[in-house]
């Protein structure tokens, strides 16, 4: 009697579980189940190759970047934090498995910025590596902030940012070589933006990077 009862329950449970799972998939199926549907809904262009992402939290941009760009996070170098409070940005230098090097910026809101070069050093082509981080635009009036962050090669004594208006301003450089310059909002809203990065060494210009757009 008991045996028959248990067997009946197990059977009905299995049927209910399977049917409900199938119903969930059928009614609310995923692009992963229906690639053609995802493509039609989201891409007019074809996904040339599908890359399966790891399931993780909502702030998983860095994990995705590390996977795509081959960053070896176990070998990251902490460059410190530039700015403070709501504008603090944490900077990292990370080598890649392809022989490259990356500058990573972690913003307070969880978003990231990454720039990876194909050389083992960030300073092979210039004495500074940089990222321009902003929010808003392209209308200058909608820009909430516009900043240049980066890292300077040892020996660089000062970093300047030249604006499209022609004005030049000094970036704040910390002991690790990490630097930061935030364009004043009034300047941003007037339509001026960073156009050149200038590194100084021993009173001389050691190198520049054109940022013009």
């Amino acid at each position, binding site marked *: 009697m008991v045996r028959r*009862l248990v067997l009946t329950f197990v059977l009905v449970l299995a049927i209910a579980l399977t049917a409900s799972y199938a119903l969930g998939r059928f009614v609310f199926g995923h692009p992963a189940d229906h690639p053609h549907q995802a493509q039609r809904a989201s891409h007019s*262009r074809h996904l040339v190759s599908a890359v399966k992402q790891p399931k993780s939290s909502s702030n998983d*941009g860095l994990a995705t*970047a590390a996977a795509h760009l081959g960053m070896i996070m176990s070998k990251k170098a902490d460059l410190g934090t530039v700015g403070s409070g709501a504008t603090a940005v944490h900077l990292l230098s990370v080598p890649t498995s392809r022989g490259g090097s990356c*500058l990573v910026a972690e913003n307070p809101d969880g978003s990231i910025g990454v720039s990876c070069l194909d050389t083992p050093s960030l300073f092979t082509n210039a004495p500074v590596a940089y990222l321009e981080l902003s929010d808003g635009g392209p209308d200058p009036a909608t820009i909430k902030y516009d900043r240049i962050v980066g890292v300077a090669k040892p020996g660089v004594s000062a970093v300047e940012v030249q604006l499209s208006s022609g004005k030049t301003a000094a970036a704040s450089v910390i002991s690790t070589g990490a630097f930061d310059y935030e364009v004043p909002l009034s300047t941003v809203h007037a339509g001026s933006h960073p156009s050149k990065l200038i590194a100084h060494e021993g009173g001389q210009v050691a190198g520049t990077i054109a940022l013009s757009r």
Partner: protein
Amino acid sequence: LHRSGPVAAALGTTKAHVCLGFLLIVLAATFGFKAGLARADGGGIYFQGTWAANGGTHPTDYDDTCNVLIYWYYGEFDKSSADNGRVMFIDSGGTWHHPVSGLGSIATSEPNYASYQKKVSTLNYTNIAYPGTAIAAYHSFRCT
């Protein structure tokens, strides 16, 4: 306890056992349905080719807001270490979110499932055309 009703009789058990059975079935059905709704992630290369000088751009299509099929959270623009460019999210009004500019392969991300409709876009703002690859990654799940 006493036996009563066709179900109990058919199972040869009591009302309490039948109630317990129905409860387990409801729980199993609920669990199975939720499992069927589990999130899926994906993405990949959506464009390979040339970015024209002075404003060449290659975007994805927009994602959804609710009834989500695709939620873009990551954009990447792979190009030479000598080439400047930008990768960003663009909302349905055309405003940029989290634009990141730099040399080489650059990436940006949108955290916290920000509830606006968006697409990933890449931009060449230099005065020379260059080749590259654009990648975007998404989460997909059902809004409730």
